[in-house]
Structures are given as structure tokens and as C-alpha cells.
């Protein structure tokens, strides 16, 4: 970095951070926000090796902060209490939109996939060949579908699959049966339903547990990938610090030239406890599919909101449509990167 460039950076930072802000004005302590997906101790214990390594790498003390809910992390980020955090897609959207955070990496599942997908399946011996076949005969078919609040079981197929064919699956199909992912898989296998929408990881799990005892259902349609959980930082962190942090996560569990094999194994072990294979680079763009789905859900809610006046509904719908249109990248980031 040339002297001039460096000077410009300093000046920019001085302007943005005000008096006393310096390029190397790193925070004394980094708080790492964590979602309490399990018990706080467990989560903390699982993340402890990573955080210790991070601390060693960036030379700043890193403290875990396990919030009691997802929003806790977002608000802590917003307040500047946390500087880094591991979030879900949904909470990452809030963090990005409201807490001045930025996605810089995402997990890759232990299977090597950077996300999951929603599937439309049918029995192995079903005469249905493809999606067109399904919608051509939808009037005489029974659909198994997930809980209304399930993203992969309901929201994703609704958005990607049924919206194009009229919207409400109840109107498209002869009959709609709602159940859990497992139930729907088994219903297809047992021919109780003709087709069913399930999440890809659940199909994998059924496959594992059944161990090939019966012919597995055929996948008629696969949704775009729903990206894995992202890592975010506060956007106002010093770029040099950001670079170090990003480098740390990208290199963690990855084989590098100077990394001893024992260290690599240890790192992979630590990641496995987090059900993570490794981290890959990502950005806010990865949130687009979930944003789209969220907006779609808002749209559904608006449409079904009987208490709303027609102009208000129209206005709301128009706004959502505008925001949908603004998500210029229709292809989820994760899928693009696969």
C-alpha cells in the first residue's frame, strides 16, 4: 500500500470516525456474537477453540457473546457491543439492514454443500416424469406439503414452484395434505400422496435411516440453494482488521502451505463440532433468496390480510414488488458459487 493511498485512508477514517480515530484504532476487545442454537455453554464451548485461534491471529482479545435469542446478537451488533457474529440468513438480513453489519463469509455444510434446497419428490415408480407432467395433472393429484411456517417445506416451494402456477397449492391440486418432512417423504414412498415438497437434508436423513430398504423417491424439482449460515462483521471495523478476520476464517480448516497437518486436523475437528466443513467467502448478496422469500411471505400476508383497505394493500404490494425487483441478482449467491 503506497504512502499516498495510506494517507487517503487515514483521512477517510478521520472523517468517518471523527477525532481520535486512527487506522490502527482497533477495538481493545472483539465481542463475537453467537446464536444460542443449543445451550449457551455448549455453543460457547464449541466455539471456544475457534475464538482462541482468532484472538491469537488478530492480536485482539475476542470474547464470545451468546445472546439469548437471534435478535440479541443483531441488537448487540447494532449497539457496537458485538463486532463479529455468526448468524442465520434471516437474522443476517436484519443485521445487514439495521445493525450496520456485512456478510463476509458463509458456512459450508459437512456434506460440502454451501446450503440446502427444497425438493418436489414423487414415488420411484410414479408415472409423473417432470414438473410439467405434475402441473398438467395437478387437478387429479394429491400434494404433501410442510407446515405453513416451514421455510423449506412450504415457503420455498410456494415461492419457487406454485407462485408461477396460480399461487395457492390448495387450488392447484386436487387435495393437499400437510405434514412434517419425514411424514411427507414416507407418504410419497407409501403412495399416500402423489407428490410432496420436502427439504433436501431431510430426504438425505430418511435415506440414511432407511438404508435403501425401499426404493427412494424420485426428485422432480430442486429449488435454488438456500445458503448456509453467514458470518458478519460490523461494517465500520477497520479494513485491516476485516482483512485479518476474513483471512482467518477462510484459512481455518483449509490446508495451507505452512499449516501443519496436526493443526489442520484439529481445526477440522473444531469445525465439525459446529457442523461446518469450512467457511467460504460470501457477501450480502447471499441473503437475496431469503429476502425474496421473506418478501414473498409478506406479500402473501398482505394479500390475505382482510383488515387492510384495498389501496393500502395495493400500496404494500407495490412496495414489495419494487423491492423484489431491486434484488437484481435472482440467483442465490450460494448456488452461483457451487
Amino acid at each position, binding site marked *: 500500500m503506497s504512502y499516498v493511498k495510506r494517507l487517503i485512508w487515514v483521512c477517510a477514517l478521520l472523517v468517518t470516525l471523527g477525532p481520535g480515530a486512527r487506522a490502527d484504532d482497533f477495538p481493545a476487545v472483539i465481542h463475537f456474537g453467537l446464536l444460542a442454537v443449543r445451550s449457551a455453554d455448549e455453543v460457547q464451548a464449541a466455539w471456544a477453540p475457534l475464538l482462541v485461534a482468532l484472538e491469537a491471529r488478530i492480536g485482539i482479545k475476542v470474547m464470545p457473546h451468546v445472546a*439469548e*435469542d*437471534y*435478535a*440479541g446478537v443483531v*441488537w448487540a451488533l*447494532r449497539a457496537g457491543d458485538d463486532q463479529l457474529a455468526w448468524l442465520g440468513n434471516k437474522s443476517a438480513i*436484519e443485521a445487514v439492514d*439495521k445493525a450496520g453489519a456485512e456478510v463476509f463469509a458463509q458456512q459450508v455444510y459437512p456434506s460440502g454443500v454451501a446450503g440446502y434446497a427444497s425438493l418436489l419428490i414423487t414415488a420411484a415408480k410414479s408415472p409423473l416424469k417432470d414438473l410439467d407432467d405434475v402441473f398438467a395433472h395437478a387437478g387429479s393429484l394429491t400434494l404433501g406439503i410442510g407446515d405453513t411456517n416451514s421455510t423449506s417445506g412450504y415457503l420455498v416451494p410456494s415461492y419457487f414452484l406454485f407462485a408461477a402456477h396460480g399461487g395457492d397449492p390448495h387450488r392447484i391440486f386436487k387435495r393437499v395434505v400437510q405434514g412434517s418432512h419425514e411424514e411427507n417423504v414416507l407418504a410419497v414412498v407409501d403412495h399416500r400422496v402423489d407428490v410432496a415438497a420436502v427439504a433436501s437434508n431431510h430426504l438425505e436423513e430418511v435415506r440414511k435411516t432407511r438404508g435403501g430398504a425401499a426404493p427412494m423417491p424420485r426428485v422432480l424439482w430442486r429449488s435454488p440453494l438456500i445458503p448456509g449460515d453467514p458470518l458478519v462483521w460490523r461494517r465500520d471495523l477497520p479494513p485491516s482488521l476485516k482483512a485479518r478476520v476474513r483471512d482467518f476464517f477462510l484459512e481455518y480448516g483449509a490446508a495451507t502451505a505452512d499449516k501443519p497437518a496436526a493443526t489442520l486436523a484439529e481445526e477440522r475437528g473444531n469445525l465439525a463440532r459446529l457442523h461446518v466443513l469450512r467457511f467460504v467467502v460470501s457477501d450480502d448478496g447471499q441473503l437475496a433468496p431469503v429476502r425474496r422469500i421473506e418478501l414473498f411471505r409478506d406479500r402473501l400476508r398482505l394479500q390475505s390480510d382482510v*383488515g387492510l383497505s384495498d389501496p393500502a394493500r395495493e400500496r404494500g404490494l407495490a412496495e414489495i414488488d419494487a423491492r423484489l425487483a431491486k434484488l437484481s441478482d435472482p440467483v442465490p449467491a450460494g448456488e452461483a458459487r457451487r
Partner: protein
Amino acid sequence: MMVRLINRIRRRIGGKLLLAVIPGLLLGTIVMLLAFLEYSHREHAAALKLRLDSFAVTQSASLVRPLWQFDSATVDQLFHSYGDLPELLDAQVLGVDGKVLAVAHGRDPSGYQQTFRREVPLVRRSPDGDYVVGRLIVVFHDGVVRSEEAEQRLAGISVLIATFVLVAAATSLAVRRLVARPLRRLRDSLHHNAATQSREPLVWHGDDEVGEVVHAYNQLLSEINQHTRDIHRLAYQDALTDLPNRRLLEDRLSHAIVLAERQHRAIAVLFVDIDNFKVVNDTLGHKLGDELIKVVAERVSNTLRMMDTVARWGGDEFVILVESVASSGEAASVCEKIIEAVGVPINLGNNLLRIGASVGISLYPQDGTDVTTLIKSADLALHEAKGRGRNSFHFFDAGMNTRALRRLDIEGALRQAMQLGQLELHYQPKIGIASGELDGAEALIRWRRPGEGLIPPDEFIPLAEESDLIVAIGDWVLREACKQILAWRAKGMGDIQVAVNLSPRHFRQDKDVEAIVAVVTAAGVYPRLIEIELTENTVMDDPERVVVLLRQLRNRGFHIAIDDFGCGYSNLGTLRKLPITTLKIDRSLVTGIEQHDGSAQIVRAIIAMGDALGLRLVAEGVECDRQLSILRKFGCGIAQGYLLARPMPAAEFEQYFHANHGDAVAVAPSLRPALARSAPAA
């Protein structure tokens, strides 16, 4: 219109009370209403603020969690539900960056005047620290409260008006019932009593104040009554004798004069004075003197008719008003009665007093036509009486005095005459014109007064008719006639019918007829032999009564004749009803029969009418042949008159009878020429 109504209300006590009560009531109620409304307004405002606070607090509590979790759907839902809040003007939630996250507007925020604003920070308390997640701003308006208050005000005003009307009506009714109506009755009673000069008490039930007033009013009335009586007595009565006093007498006299003038009647004013009262007073003392006056007053009063007035004029003087006297003689007889009554000895304080009274008489209209003159005249007459010797009376008018004295003289003498046998009956024969035969006789009374000779009936009968003396005379005549009939019969002269004249006084009562019948029956004479003659006037005084009485007589067999027919004003209709047997044509008509064609026509008409009614016709006063011949020509049945025979004493009549009708068939020779002359040339 309105003003008149208010004036009308004002005039009534109920209205006055209402006008007094209602403004106070109205003011009180309005003040109460205003106070209530103000209180209510404050309550409402306080309640509204409380609601706002509690709403803001509860909603902030509800909003923290969704805001925390970026759950805009829930926020929207919550805000969506705010729309139902009637008091809400608007509500909004701001994010930490000041961006409006949700807005809600009141559904119908109209008619509000005031707004209340609450801003509540939305704070999430977490173990990691407190996070402000946004701000809630709620603005309430008082539109609902205002409309509630307006309703309340309306209700309040309605209640006010209803109360007002009810209280006014109740007050009005109560006042009308409890005060106005009683007062109106009292007022009407007052008006009535004032208008009719009466003092009728008011019948009242109730012992409230009004009842007490009415009671007092009634008491007052009776007191006034008593006082009025007292005043009247004091003003118009003499304290000693309780007789009317001078003033009342003058009043009554003036009233009597007015009546008498209208009815053409006479009034007598008698001025009475006790003779030598001063002596009595001086010797026996004032006390006994007063006692004497009281006795005299009582005696004088008892002498008079109810309608006459005795007044104490002062001292020992009394003035008596005798209304409607028929003649001076009547006045004189009143005086005589008074003098006689006073003359009865009086026992006064162990003294037997015999006192006399003198009376002066004045007559209306001769002696005066006004109160003062009449009394003065009577007073002058009194002095004249005193001057001529006490215990007597004297008329103001000298001529009248003479006549009165003469009348009294005759009257007194006549009474004695009956007892002394100075009265006698003469009989005038009635002759059948066609037959020349005797057809009864008319008994005519004569008074043979010693020293005066024979006094004609014209001189004493009218006097006798002024009193009941005429009845006694009539009875005597009847008795005498009966005796004569029996005597003639005993002498073989056969049954000669005798006509007897009776005065109207014989036909006043039923018992008069009975007396007649009794006399005739007692004498043992057939009633058919008695013909009772009465004048037209007797009948016409009271036709209905007389018809009844005459019918009774006729039923007994008496013959009845109308005397002097043709000169009175007989009602022919009444005549037809009379049970008469004979008509006696008045002598004036008979006398005029040959001079005036009119009389002849009347006589002829009477005869025709008598024939038609089947009556005997007797022509009276036939004095010449020409009259007789005309009467014969007219077909008159019987004649009576000097031409045929004069009235004659019974003995003379007997000679006449024997000379002319001795054979009871042949016509008297002396009559024959007369009858022959008057007979038409055959």
C-alpha cells in the same frame, strides 16, 4: 300573545308562585347541570388520559418484543388492531433511527377539540443490557368523549326540561289545588256575597291555613251579619219598643206612596199620642212611663194588620201607616180600634191605669202626596183631636171628618138597629107580563130610625158593605124573608118566592154558602122559594169561586138571579157557566127603552139571550105603560116597578095580594088596565 299569556299567569297566584319558583329552580338545575357537566368533562378527560397512558404502556410492552425481533408483521398486526380504538387519532412507532415503522390512524377522528400525546420509549431489557428498540407515539383525541359529553348534555338538558316541566306542573297543580282553588272559592264567595248583599258562609272541609282563613272569613261574615242586624236595629228600630223608628217609618211611607200612586190607592197616616202621658210619667216615674209606652205599642201593634206599620215617633207618640185603605171610614174604624185597645185598663206597677189616646189622620192623596206633608197633616189633625177633647180621632180634612163621623154614627146605630128591630123588609111584587099574575116578590131593606124616619138603603148599605156588618144584615134579611114566607103560607097566600139581595161578602168562603143554607133550612123553607140576587160585580170579582159557590146553592134548589144586568161588564162566557135562573134587566136600560133606540136593542138582545139560555127575565123599574108594552113586545117574562107595585111592608103586601091575587089565579084589577094598555092592539 306571549306578553298577554305572561300577564295572565302573573295575575294568578299559581302563576306568581311559579314565576317565583321556576327561575330559582331553573337556575339551580342549570348550575347543577353545568357543574355536573364540568365534573363529567374532567372525569372523562382524566379517564381518557388514563386510557392513553395504559394503552401506551401496554402497547409498548407488546411492541418491544416484535421490534426486538424485527417482526414487522406482528407490529403491523398490532397497529392494525389500533384502528378499532375509538379515541385514537394516530399512533406510530419509530425505529431507533427515527424511521417510522408503523402508523395507525383513528377510524373516524371527528369533532374533537383536544388531543393528548404520549411518547414512550421502547426498551428491551436483557441480561446483556437495556436496548432502546424504538419509540411509541400515541395521540388520542377527545372526539368520543366530546360526543359522549354532548349526549350527556342532551340527556341532562332533557332531564332538566322534563324535571322543569314536571316540577312546574306539579307546583302549578299543587298550588291550584291547595291554594288557588280554595282562594278562588273564597273570592267567588266574596263576590257573590257582595253582589247579592248576602252573607252566606262558605262550606269548607280542611284544617290547613286556608281552612283557618275560611273559618275566620265565616266568623267575620256572621259577625258582620250580627253587626248589620244591630246597625239596622239601631238605625231603624226603636230601642224601647222594638218598633220601627222615625226613619224606617219615613222610608216605608215613601215606598207606600210610590205604590199607592201607581195602584191608585189611598194611604192613611195615623198620628197617635197617649193622653196625659206627661202626668203618668211625672207621677209614676220614667221607668213605668217606659213600661206604659211598651204596653201601648204592643196593643197598637196587635190591633193592626201585618202589612201596616206602627212606628214610635218619639216620646209617647206613634205613627201608623195604613196601606191601601178603601175609604176614610176604614181609617176611622182603625182609629176606633186603636182608641178602644189603648182604653183597656193597664196594670202598671200595682196601679190600674186607664188611659186614652188621640189620633190624627191624614190621607194620601187628599192631605198630602209626600212623607213630610202627610205626617205634618196627621200631626195637625192630632192637635185638632186633642183640642176637641181627648180620646178621639180627627181627620185633617174637615169634610171627611164629618162624613167619617156620620158613617161611624150610622155604623154604630145600624148594629143597634138590628137588635132594636129598627130594620124592616119591604116587598115589591114581580108580575108576569103575559099573565098579570104575581110571580114572587123582592125583599128590600128599610131602616126606620127614630127621629129620622125611614132611611133608604142607599144611605147605609154601602157603609155596611165596608165592614162585615153587611153579612150580619144579609143574614137578618134572609131570616126575615124566610119568616115572612112561612107567615104568608100560614095565612093561606101560598108559596111566594122572595128574592133576597146578598152582598159580595157573602161569597168569599165556602162556609158563607153553608151559612145561607143553614139559615133557610133552620127556618124550614124550601130553598126554591128563595131567590138570591147578586150583582154582576159580585160575580166578576172572582168568577171561578163564585161559580162554584152558586152551583152549590143551585144544587140545593135556590134560585139565583143576576141583579142590575146590563150595566156592568159581564163576561158572557162566565155568564153561560153560571147556574143562574133569572136575569134582572137594569132599571136604567128599562127607563131608556122608549127614548134611546140603543137601550131597546140591548134589552131585546138580553131578552133573546136569556131565552136562549132558558132564564127568567125580569125587567126592573118599569114605570110607564109604554115601557111595559115594549117589554111585552120584546117577549120579556116578568116586570117589576112602580107602574105595577111599589115596595110595601108585609102587611100592606098582604092587602095588595088579597086585592089583586086573592084568587091566586086572577090578575089584580089595578094591574089589568096597565097590562091592557100595554098590550098590543088585538
